[in-house]
């Protein structure tokens, strides 16, 4: 199979003519789709007659991490666990924008039937194991998926993503030791956006270089630029190869930045205008776009097309979500247990 995956475009989205750089453009396109999805989500959440509720954490600014992982993610084999900032990876792994937006709207057509909401996007058939709201609680689950890969000898790996703040949950360390002790194919990935809610890394971690939070478990650790898609792809590729080869887990700190507040209620008081502007210069989409231009793989017309495409997709998604029905009262009692009781097997 291909060293890195093609981004699957939803049917109806025309692929830009020239063949050279098609892959690269598709990746750029996916980052644009995620950005557009998140910014539209922001609008929908904040506009009167709010149709999205609960905690909602946007991925804008971190797109290169999810899209980079998706590029090496082997569907049908690999798994991915993430925290609650999960819209980006879900789209990158191929979730249609419609069920994604519908989940935010809490509709039956949502990826989790409207029962999970923003923090709980799941897509079992592609190995997207969520979407988890309790900080750090999903990290042991990631070692479990990796255990299953090893137990069944599938050659799969589990990408286990979490925020910089999650390294302070004990589950993180218990999982690291277990994964290394049992030589499980799991890649632990810190999406270090510099902040745990309003707390800067330097105020929540005694060790400022977060890749060092993986020391003490006899596993390789690494710090990478999470805003450069090419770097993310190549690092994830070699990490996945390392794990697939049976060497055990690996620990990667992907340094990035979130443009929006922690969640919708966050006034961003802790951030200076200068800091925000400086960050915009390292926008993963801009970085990659410029690179494609330099390589002559992208021109204004094509970019315009792509912008039109993602805009249309997100518009349709909102329409779809809006027109989808709410769950029925009876749904309240479904999906709790898989079996009927009394149970005899």
């Amino acid at each position, binding site marked *: 199979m291909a060293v890195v995956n093609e981004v699957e475009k939803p049917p109806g989205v025309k692929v830009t003519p020239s063949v050279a750089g098609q892959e690269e453009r598709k990746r750029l396109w996916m980052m644009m789709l995620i950005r557009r999805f998140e910014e539209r989500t922001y609008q929908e959440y904040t506009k009167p007659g709010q149709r999205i509720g609960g905690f909602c954490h946007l991925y804008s600014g971190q797109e290169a991490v999810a899209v980079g992982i998706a590029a090496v993610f082997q569907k049908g084999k690999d798994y991915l666990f993430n925290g609650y900032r999960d819209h980006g990876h879900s789209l990158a792994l191929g979730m249609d924008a419609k069920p994604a937006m519908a989940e935010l709207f809490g509709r039956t057509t949502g990826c989790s039937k409207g*029962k999970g909401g923003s923090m709980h996007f799941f897509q079992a058939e592609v190995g997207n194991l969520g979407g988890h709201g309790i900080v750090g609680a999903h990290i042991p689950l990631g070692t479990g998926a990796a255990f299953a890969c090893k137990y069944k000898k599938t050659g799969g790996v589990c990408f286990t993503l979490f925020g910089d703040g999650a390294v302070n949950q004990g589950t993180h360390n218990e999982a690291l030791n277990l994964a290394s002790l049992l030589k499980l194919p799991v890649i632990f990935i810190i999406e270090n956006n510099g902040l745990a809610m309003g707390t800067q890394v330097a105020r929540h971690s005694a060790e400022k270089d977060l890749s060092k939070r993986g020391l003490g478990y006899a596993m390789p650790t690494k710090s990478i630029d999470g805003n450069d898609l090419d770097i993310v792809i190549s690092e994830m590729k070699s990490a996945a190869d390392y794990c697939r080869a049976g060497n055990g887990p690996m620990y990667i700190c992907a340094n990035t930045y979130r443009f929006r507040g922690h969640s919708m209620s966050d006034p961003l008081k802790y951030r200076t205008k200068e800091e925000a502007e400086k960050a915009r210069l390292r926008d993963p989409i801009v970085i990659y776009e410029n690179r494609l231009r330099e390589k002559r793989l992208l021109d204004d017309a094509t970019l315009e097309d792509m912008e039109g495409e993602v805009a249309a997709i997100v518009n349709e998604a909102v329409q779809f979500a809006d027109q989808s029905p709410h769950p029925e*009262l009876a*749904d309240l009692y479904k999906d*709790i247990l898989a079996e009927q009781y009394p149970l005899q097997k």
Partner: protein
Amino acid sequence: MPEIQLREALRQAMTEEMDRDPNVFLLGEEVAEYNGAYKVSEGMLARFGPERVIDTPISEAGFSGLGLGAAMCGLRPIVEFMSWSFSLVCMDQLMNNAANIRYMSGGQFKLPIVFRGGNGIAHQLAATHSHRVDAIFARVPGLVVIAPSNPYDAKGLLKSAIRCDDPVIFLESEIMLADKGEVPQEEYTLPIGVADIKRQGTDVTLICWSKMVKLCMNAAQELEQQHGIDAEVLDLRTLRPLDEQTVIQSIRKTHRCVIVDEDWSYCGIGAGIMERIYKKVFDDLDAPIGRVSSEDVPVPYNHYLELAMQPSVEKVIAAVREVCYV
């Protein structure tokens, strides 16, 4: 009397007690520089400085244990959980270290510590963020559990909790933080372990606490207007130790009772209350004790399902009419 929000009442209680006793300090996620995830501790860092208002990493087991160790050494920590749902990751610290160290040491240690934060179902936070921990902690000897229903009670009870030499589980509600109520300028405290009759009535006793009190007050009004039923609303305020006496007295007066509980019904506080009082009021009851509680399902994200699973004025009225046979 000035009207203030419940979050201000909590802040006043903490601020007054920190002014009063230098051994009291506040510890938790985002309590200092961010001024509190829900702005309960707004301004407290500025007033008391970083030695006494301390931001922590996302390490509930770590910082709740830190508070407990400090309490064993004579300090009086207030530990804020951003949500009580997150206390599941440090349950051992609370159910073992907080509840048992005094007993296991033969009474050598006091643990003057308050754990506080938002409890229960808020708005569309889904199953993991909507836990009602009332019964989990009230079940455990060695702990004190308080759940106020309004700003006045919240301030008076939190001040008592901070002065109390035992570990206190203080249950607030995120969606009550903006509720307003009258709070006197003069200092006051309220007794721990004493229920409060929020509305006198003769026909039926509505047992409730925290968020459910407002619901029951509304139901009582409608019951009177629409159905001519005069309901007594009993606010437990403290869930452990339970004020059995006040509960029993009220039921002996009304001969009918409905317990309204935001928790699941099985093994929740409502169940606990029945266990504690049923035998004692059995012969006084004109009908079996009625119940309103949340449906036996995880809390869903969808707004309508989330509402549908919870107690409502309608459900309370229906339950009351059932025990009143009307």
